[in-house]
């Protein structure tokens, strides 16, 4: 039985479709219901819907053998999983953004508001900059507007929210997209199924790009 953690939402539905064409069908998954776990004994697969940012926890701890998670979550929490494929879906960028009139003074400690503490810390230490991290859980854009921080480190998809709040991207830290992740022990115990999925997904990604 292959256990698959799907991120709730549109991405998860697309991912299910890809797994289904790889031979792991379970039509029940897409039906509207409050059930969280769906199983198809014929194809030997069990799907469950989880909060997107939790997928990597399920995979790291082995409750799911395979799942799909954003590169931002994988890097931020340094999950001990195999990061096998780039699905090239859910593309966005991890960026540093600031108010349009912001002038960086390298002689001062820079105040950074972010949800992604580790990514911000790693980035600024790579350029040797001293920072003061302000950890927020949402509405990050507000921090520089109110003068609480100099910059923000956040995910940028279209940039609309930034623009509407008078902010702009000043640096791209890395591109983000959805990744197929696999538990390290499951990889050994369920190798055939996992390789079957990976090979098929890889082909599907190539065809689309």
């Amino acid at each position, binding site marked *: 039985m292959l256990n698959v953690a799907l991120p709730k939402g549109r991405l998860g539905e697309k991912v299910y479709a890809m797994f289904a064409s790889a031979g792991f069908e379970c039509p029940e998954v897409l039906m509207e219901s409050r059930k969280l776990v769906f199983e198809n004994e014929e194809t030997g697969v069990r799907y469950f819907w989880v909060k997107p940012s939790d997928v990597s926890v399920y995979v*790291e701890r*082995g409750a799911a053998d395979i799942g799909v998670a954003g590169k931002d979550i994988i890097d931020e929490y340094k999950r*001990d999983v*195999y*990061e096998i*494929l780039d699905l090239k879906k859910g593309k966005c960028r991890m960026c540093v953004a600031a108010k349009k009139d912001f002038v960086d003074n390298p002689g001062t400690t820079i105040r950074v508001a972010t949800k992604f503490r580790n990514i911000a810390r790693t980035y600024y230490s790579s350029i040797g900059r001293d920072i003061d991290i302000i950890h927020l859980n949402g509405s990050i854009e507000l921090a520089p507007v109110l003068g609480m921080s100099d910059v923000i480190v956040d995910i940028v998809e279209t940039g609309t929210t930034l623009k509407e709040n008078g902010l702009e991207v000043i640096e791209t830290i890395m591109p983000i997209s959805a990744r197929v992740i696999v538990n390290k*022990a499951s990889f*050994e115990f369920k190798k055939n199924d996992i390789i079957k999925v990976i*090979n098929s997904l890889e082909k599907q990604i190539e065809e689309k790009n």
Partner: protein
Amino acid sequence: MSESLFKLKGEERIVHSLRSLYTSYGYVKFKMSRFEEYDLYAGNKDFLVSGNIITFTDTDGSLMALKPDVTLSIVKGFREEEGSVSKVSYDEKVYRVSSSSGVFKEITQVGIECLGDIEGVELGEVALLAQKSLLLISDESMLTISHMGVTEGFLGMISSPKAKSEALKYMEEKNISALNKLISEYPESGDALEKLRSLLLLSGSNDEIIKRLREMGADKKSLDELEEVVSVLDSDALRIDFSVLGGMNYYNGITFRGYVKGVPESVISGGQYDKLMARMGKKAKAIGFAVYMDALEKLLEGRDEFNLDVALVYDDETSMSEVLRKAEEIRKSGRSVSTMKKIPQKLKSREVVYLRGGENA
């Protein structure tokens, strides 16, 4: 039933049976101090599972560490003797950050090291012992084995050092997409990168894999060694897998990791580490592995339904000698007995025996 009286807790039982296994193979128990000079670890941080070390200042002002690892101490204390091999086993408490909780923990590490003029026999024996250790832990286990020489052979064909270090990182992540991208960025090393990429998802029987590696032109000496070791192991619980890469600066030759069903991370890790020996000024070769008991916690927890066989409940009318005599009698049948006047709420016993007014109930 008699086993339940002497039933050890999961961890104790496994440590005990591992120790007897290693003793039966002639591995001599090595006992060491709980502290070590910090310098020993500072120079070899990436050999350790986690770089975090608990340090303190000794009475003479020197910086000491609570041991985060055992292998380095064994290597340090090893006396070379030409042509001979020293086989040691250990079970020690080590102190490091646990991967699951992210805080310092006392962890039991059990393992063996084989140092000296080692050759095929020792390589085979140690790999075999790793597989046997896994079997003692669980019926469903898997040993993954690889050979650094094969990976290094392909890595050596990559001309750009940047591409090489990136390729290594992606190999550890099994990151196919990133390797594909690297292939398009460095077409001059495309052939070597393609080969590394194909190492990631090797499937089929071990014989087929070795055959394929030969066709790919993998380093012959390494492959011969790998094939020989694989031939003495139980092929049902063995996989050739080249993502075992951690510590390329220390390991060479055969490396392996062990997994058991129900535990999401590896429980055994080891290999041949001549490079570490050289770094520490030893000419000899060495191979060994460690079993990490902290990883097994997930397997062992919550298995006991009862914490006692018999609760012997007596009242005020019963004499002390009668209570103790009755308890001893039940114990002789091989069951554990605890005497009490009232059963505590949290106690779960298989059976309750009442002693009332001196009569057997």
